[in-house]
């Protein structure tokens, strides 16, 4: 085959989506492409889009698994609205993803899978290649299956194994398209299949075949070059939100010089936290896979009583089951981190889709006056920081903390500048002193209202804790009316005083713009991208984003008071807006809500903001 002449176009950013059957290895291909991009010095964010079923019927839309990666020369805040390049391994993948593709995008399909039978399975009534629906797109009809098989014809491998390498052919195409070196991918494959030399050779051959095919065909005349980021220097790793939560908890435990205990029950999309920590016995981490959500948190409360950093991880339905036990942690005033990776609800809802609809549950979903600290991470990487801070607050203030993330942060990834432990804040644990004659279980630090932590094994401090109301100072069981009121106020005030240790709200943009955009948690990247774009267009718009929800940052009202219009954007029906109305009723909050199991798209946010700016 002779080489053609190609031109190279320089791009600021690009969004690539890999889609195929859930057995086609699209997650792997996407991760490989991301890692290579990181090596090339790009900023990136990724998001996998799994079907809820493990292996839905082959060739159907329900069985399509996708992986989107957004790479750029500048800061990348989201995994991208619409794809510039779509790889569709079958008609179902095309069917499921066409509405997420930019007009004029490059669409690479495995033409060998595009036949009448497959169209029917995917739900097409007309041949999508012939009905004009792809007019205006650059469709690359690559015979991926046939060429993969031909490439490996001389190897003694069964057809199933051969077909499993098809994803590498597609990846090879992309490597050529984006001027990537194959070395990184070769190394990756050598590591992944280190005990199966046949598979290393097969996958490498197919990857190379895809690369050479792209080099040869006429449909791909242009390759793209994205310059490396200039403002991000240092060491980075690609990290998902769930891994970052796990590592943040571990970092806090190390900082506080405590063992870490996670009591948890597997649940989508939080399971990876339990899985990651299960691998970390060498780091003084104990995990307890409990028989249910209730046992998960109760074992963590028991562990907390013994003086370790204790946590439990879950998603919405699990948080509902843990409610009573969260109340127990409130009453016993023990440190506990509850990580809730939000998904669509109610009931089983949309297990694999992100949503922000557990906010009210986190704040109020328990019997009695049951205040806890509520906070939310806002990017995959800062899940590390907020898991660390949740632990610090829990330990120093002897209080349960609910950390909210969501399926988008949990499974999405981004480049994370690796921190040094010495740069993380200290954690000072309020342990009691053995044989302290003045020790009283519910005596409080006058500044923080935290009680002291006396743990089994400490001499001279034997005492009882429990779910019954406790007498002030002594901690004896008390049914006294005045005492109950006093203790209720203490518990609330203890949470409110956490405001002393959290940062104040910051504003991005003009402090006196026409419109303030307010968000919380996982919507940060999309809102920031939209606001930046509009600011570049000269619009009078600013944003502020909440990571601390209870207590709210001290300057919240002060920030809000500068703006005529405030819009609160969230993936629910307005829970944070309603919470703000209860805390700061003097302001008018416009709502922008989306509850489709999908994150905000930058373009839809921009449309909404422009509309609000134009209204009188």
């Amino acid at each position: 085959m002779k080489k053609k002449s190609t031109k190279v176009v320089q791009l600021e950013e690009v969004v690539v989506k890999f889609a195929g059957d859930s057995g086609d290895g699209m997650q792997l291909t996407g991760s490989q492409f991301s890692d290579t991009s990181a090596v090339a010095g790009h900023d990136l964010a990724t998001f996998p889009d799994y079907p809820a079923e493990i292996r839905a019927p082959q060739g159907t839309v329900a069985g399509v698994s996708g992986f989107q990666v957004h790479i750029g020369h500048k800061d990348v805040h989201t995994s991208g609205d619409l794809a510039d390049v779509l790889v569709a391994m079958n008609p179902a993948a095309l069917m499921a993803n066409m509405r997420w593709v930019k007009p004029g995008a490059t669409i690479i399909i495995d033409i060998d899978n595009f036949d009448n039978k497959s169209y029917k399975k995917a739900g097409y009534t007309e041949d999508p290649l012939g009905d004009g629906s792809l007019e205006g797109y650059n469709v690359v009809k690559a015979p991926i299956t046939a060429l993969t098989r031909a490439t490996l014809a001389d190897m003694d491998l069964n057809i199933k194994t051969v077909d499993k390498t098809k994803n590498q052919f597609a990846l090879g195409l992309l490597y050529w398209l984006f001027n990537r070196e194959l070395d990184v991918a070769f190394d990756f494959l050598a590591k992944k299949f280190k005990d199966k030399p046949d598979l290393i050779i097969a996958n490498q051959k197919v990857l190379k075949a895809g690369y050479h095919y792209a080099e040869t065909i006429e449909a791909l005349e242009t390759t793209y070059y994205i310059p490396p980021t200039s403002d991000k220097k240092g060491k980075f790793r690609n990290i998902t939100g769930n891994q970052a939560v796990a590592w943040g908890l571990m970092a806090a435990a190390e900082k506080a010089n405590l063992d870490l205990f996670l009591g948890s029950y597997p649940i989508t999309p939080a399971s990876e936290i339990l899985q990651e920590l299960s691998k970390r016995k060498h780091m003084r981490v104990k995990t307890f896979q409990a028989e249910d959500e209730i046992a998960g948190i109760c074992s963590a409360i028991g562990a907390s009583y013994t003086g370790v950093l204790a946590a439990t991880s879950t998603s919405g339905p699990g948080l509902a089951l843990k409610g009573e036990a969260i109340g127990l942690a409130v009453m016993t005033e023990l440190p506990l981190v509850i990580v809730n990776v939000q998904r669509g609800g109610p009931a089983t809802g949309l297990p694999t889709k992100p949503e922000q609809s557990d906010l009210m549950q986190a704040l109020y979903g328990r019997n009695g006056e049951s205040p806890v600290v509520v906070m939310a991470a806002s990017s995959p990487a800062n899940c590390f920081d907020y898991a660390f801070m949740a632990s610090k607050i829990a330990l120093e203030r002897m209080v349960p903390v609910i950390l909210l993330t969501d399926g988008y942060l949990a499974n999405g990834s981004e480049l994370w500048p690796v921190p040094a432990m010495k740069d993380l804040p200290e954690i000072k644990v309020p342990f009691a002193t053995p044989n302290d004659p003045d020790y009283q279980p519910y005596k409080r630090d006058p500044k923080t209202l935290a009680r002291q932590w006396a743990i089994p094994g400490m001499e001279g401090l034997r005492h009882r804790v429990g779910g019954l109301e406790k007498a002030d100072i002594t901690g004896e069981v008390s049914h006294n009316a005045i005492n109950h009121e006093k203790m209720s106020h203490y518990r609330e005030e203890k949470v409110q005083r956490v405001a002393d240790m959290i940062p104040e709200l910051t504003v991005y943009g003009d402090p006196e713009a026409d419109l303030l955009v307010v968000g919380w948690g996982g919507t940060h990247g999309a809102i920031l991208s939209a606001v930046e774009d509009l600011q570049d267009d000269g619009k009078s718009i600013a944003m502020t984003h909440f990571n601390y929800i209870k207590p709210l940052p001290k300057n919240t009202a002060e920030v809000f008071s500068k703006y005529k219009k405030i819009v609160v954007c969230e993936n629910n029906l307005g829970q944070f807006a309603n919470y703000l109305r209860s805390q700061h009723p003097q302001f008018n909050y416009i709502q922008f809500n989306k509850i489709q199991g999908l994150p905000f798209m930058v373009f839809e946010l921009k449309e909404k903001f422009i509309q609000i700016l134009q209204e009188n």
Partner: protein
Amino acid sequence: MATDNLNIPEITKKDFQVDNEIKWCAGCGSFAILNSVINVLPKLGVKKEDVCFVSGIGCSSRFPYYIKTYGFHGLHGRAAAIASGVKVANPNLNVWQITGDGDCMAIGGNHFIHLLRRNININILLLNNKIYGLTKGQYSPTTPKGSKTKTSPDGTIEEAFKPGELAIGAGAHFFARVTDTDQKLMQDAFYQGAMHKGASFTEILENCVIFNNAAHADITEKDLKDDHTIYLQHGEKMIFGSERDKGLVLDGLKLKVVKIGEDGYTMEDVLVHDATCEDTTLHYMLARMARPEFPLALGVIRNYQGTSYDELLQAQFDDARKNSPIKTMDQLMNSGAVFEN
């Protein structure tokens, strides 16, 4: 381990007695049970600060307030889960779970079977009075079928759990049954249970003077107990009766009560109790025995020493610490796929 510590100061039952008022009803069986526990604790070779009592909700679960140790009065049904966290997080502690028939067999049934299955080294004491006392007299999962209670005015139509049968089915390595009227029996079972490495489960048939008085009279009354119960001791013949003339034999695949010297049965035919064997067949049959066909089995019915969760976890821990070069977060965060710009 605390038991290896030779510097444990001498302790007595006084070290565990509380000054505060004990608020069980006068005549409640829990007083005797508390007394037995307090008598056993000084014999275990553990520091008084290393003992931890965890309970759920119910009359029996007030126990931690009446014993001077570290104590955790938890949630209804959840004591097993809380105790599991305590023990796994700090294996040096000597952990006890106090529970009742509602707490353990109804709302806490799930945690109960999983604690036994995992075989975590916790001593579970089930105070079984076969009634809901704290909520004032509804039937529990161990209330005999047909009993009239506040919620079964026409008699219950539910079969009762036999806690021992459930426990052995869930994989319990240690099961004992005692009565609240017999201090010696209780102390012996509590001691053996505490010495057992792994989960130990002791059912105490307890009297509730208010809502289910004399529920166990058939087996605790002086003139009845010798003929209506059998006290099983490891290595001893299974004989009982006021005349010590009745025994248990195997008849095919079933147990049978015989009179020694009658129908051709001699002492030779009477079974010898082996509490320590792994096989559960005979333990299961003994735990199931019910009046009036059989005497009720008391004592340590099963005491098979396997490997506890704690030991296996510690072994994995030690291996991981030894084999991984990564010991700190800085090492971990800089390992593997790190990209440098």
